[in-house]
């Protein structure tokens, strides 16, 4: 308990230190030495003022909610596509040999590369953003699903076969539960890809969302708002990761003593 308290205190001190250092650098660079223009350098106090403003009129919360909903829709579509694609790549040796390298390649594309396509096909709409999210995260998840199934210990499969399990039973009762921990980790990583892709998509369009709030900040030459949104994007991503994915992961792992 005491140790925990010490840890929490350490974390608080660390971030307080960063804030103070940041404010001092700003003070020295902008006010004292005038190396930077005040509109090009954010400061903790300026970010705080932006926060009060955007939180006060409710636009920040709206942006978060819109982004999250969009992210969730895109992520779920990507999840289904990724799972099906991963399964097929695993099940058919032909696809594993030929399609997998292609999927691997596509997966390395930064999601921003899909933006021109999506705008041509869907215009400056919600769908365009969701398309970018799907393209940005589905392929990585497909690879994860394929790997997870491939890594099921062969001894488990052999044991099930010698107990008379057929193909369907092996998928349902062995492969699925055996690959679950690795799959959950893959899906968790998929979320971080989806969240990044979401921002690439949002800054291109005019739909309400965090990406749009960021661009508005740039258009108003309000560097503090830009900084604020960046911080919110990071925090939201972390919160979802910790509340949703980490919890699922914990549960799956605990049962197996991992």
């Amino acid at each position, binding site marked *: 308990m005491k140790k925990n308290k010490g840890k929490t205190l350490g974390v608080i001190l660390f971030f307080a230190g960063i804030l103070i250092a940041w404010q001092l650098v700003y003070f020295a660079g902008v006010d004292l030495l005038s190396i930077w223009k005040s509109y090009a350098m954010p400061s903790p106090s300026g970010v705080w003022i932006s926060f009060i403003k955007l939180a006060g009129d409710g636009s920040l919360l709206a942006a978060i909610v819109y982004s999250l909903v969009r992210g969730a829709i895109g992520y779920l579509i990507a999840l289904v596509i990724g799972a099906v694609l991963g399964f097929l790549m695993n099940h058919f040796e032909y696809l594993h040999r030929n399609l997998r390298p292609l999927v691997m390649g596509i997966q390395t594309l930064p999601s921003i590369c899909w933006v021109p396509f999506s705008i041509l096909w869907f215009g400056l709409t919600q769908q365009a953003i969701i398309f970018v999210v799907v393209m940005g995260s589905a392929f990585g998840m497909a690879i994860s699903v394929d790997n997870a199934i491939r890594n099921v210990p062969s001894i488990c499969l052999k044991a099930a076969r010698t107990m*008379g*399990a057929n193909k369907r039973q092996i998928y349902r009762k062995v492969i699925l539960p055996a690959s679950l921990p690795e799959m959950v980790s893959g899906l968790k990583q998929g979320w971080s890809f989806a969240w990044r892709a979401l921002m690439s998509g949002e800054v291109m369009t005019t739909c309400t969302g965090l990406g749009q709030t960021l661009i508005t900040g740039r258009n108003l030459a309000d560097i503090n708002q830009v900084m604020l949104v960046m911080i919110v994007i990071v925090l939201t991503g972390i919160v979802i990761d910790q509340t949703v994915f980490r919890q699922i992961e914990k549960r799956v792992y605990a049962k197996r003593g991992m």
Partner: protein
Amino acid sequence: MSLILKNVSKQFDDASQSTLNHIDLEIRDGEFLCIVGKSGCGKSTLLNLVAGLDQPTEGEILLNGQKVTGPGADRVVMFQEHALFPWRNVIENVKFGMEIAGLPKAEQEEKAMHYLRMMQLEDYRDYPIHQLSGGMRQRVALARALTLDSQILLMDEPFSALDKQTSNRLRKELQEIWMSMKKTILFITHSVEEAVYLGDRVVVMSDVTGSIKDVVPIELERPRYVYDEKFVEYRHRILSEVQGEEEV
């Protein structure tokens, strides 16, 4: 039950010579048959063929006159590593095979508990696998194998990953179980002592030719004791057959 291997040979695709060469063997109903041989002589290969996990390149394996073409619950295997499912607890593991077979839930429970009791594991019913010792895991695996009432039980060095003391205890338990059930068992081991202790007959395999070198009936009353004069005699005789090839 009758299990016959007829002129069985196995050559792996990437191997220069045959791992198994013209194996003829009959496993009798209710018999405890042990196979010994040096590491790499093809014992596991032979067991995998009987299990149907692999196909012979030549010859055939007949179970009750029917050619073996794939794995099935009539030939359950117990492996060297425990092969339990880590996402299932003890009783769920024991029930796995019965679930596959579609037995009614009540019957699954009853049978699973019966065999857990036989293994003295009834108190560990709801334990996760990772909290069991190696010996307990193998006992769970044995319970799981027995629930299926298979025609024959195939065991591939099931105790060799355990420490000596635990493996001695388990083989004693297995002897008792076999004496009460008279189940047909094909048991593979590299320990001659284990083979003489458990087997009605001991098959000695040669790693030079990949064939059967000798079949030794063990005419000792059960329960057997490793310090018996006769036991030691058998042991020496088979040991020298296994090791004999070193002089060649």
